[in-house]
């Protein structure tokens, strides 16, 4: 791990943090409910990629599993909220 890779990792971390900031602003001020759901989706995607970059920077494969879990449960949350917006309830009888 020399200088170039460390700088690229720091730059990518900065980019993903800024992206999470953008998504958080949209999440707070989004005019409609679907904007907020979309902002949450972008937020968790950025967080997942941030964890992957963190795993590369620290040279550890442990962060991969956290990223996998975030991807999985983020999709479940987005799908549930989109279904709720579409039909008014998540699990229909």
């Amino acid at each position: 791990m020399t200088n170039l890779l460390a700088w690229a990792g720091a730059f990518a971390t900065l980019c993903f943090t800024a992206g999470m900031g953008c998504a958080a602003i949209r999440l707070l001020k989004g005019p409609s409910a679907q904007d907020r759901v979309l902002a949450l989706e972008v937020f968790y995607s950025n967080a997942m990629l941030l964890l992957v970059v963190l795993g590369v920077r620290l040279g550890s494969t442990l962060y991969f599993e956290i990223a996998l879990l975030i991807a999985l449960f983020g999709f479940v949350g987005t799908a549930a909220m989109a279904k709720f917006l579409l039909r008014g309830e998540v699990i229909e009888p």
Partner: protein
Amino acid sequence: MNAISLPAWAELLVAVLLAAGGVIALIGSAGLLRLADFFQRLHASTLVNTLGALCVLAGSMLFFTLTARRLVLHEILIALLVALTAPVASMLLARATLYRTGHLPGHERS
């Protein structure tokens, strides 16, 4: 930082992939913040899930393959999951928006 040294070309490639993924994800997120309409924002935010995630996961895969000196492919799991779920989520959100607003932007009902 660990003491494992990569060959120079691999280090350059991993660095470029990570930085490109960061820039692409930042472009997508800034588009989410700046664009005017929900469907435009949906269009911008797909960038994070497709090309940004692909670049970062390819860089990570290359890095761990070269440092472990064997084939490490577990990032493919995330890539596959994202590639399968991102279109479904976008589709559900677009349908929900269409249902809630009743029309596409620019096609208002009279």
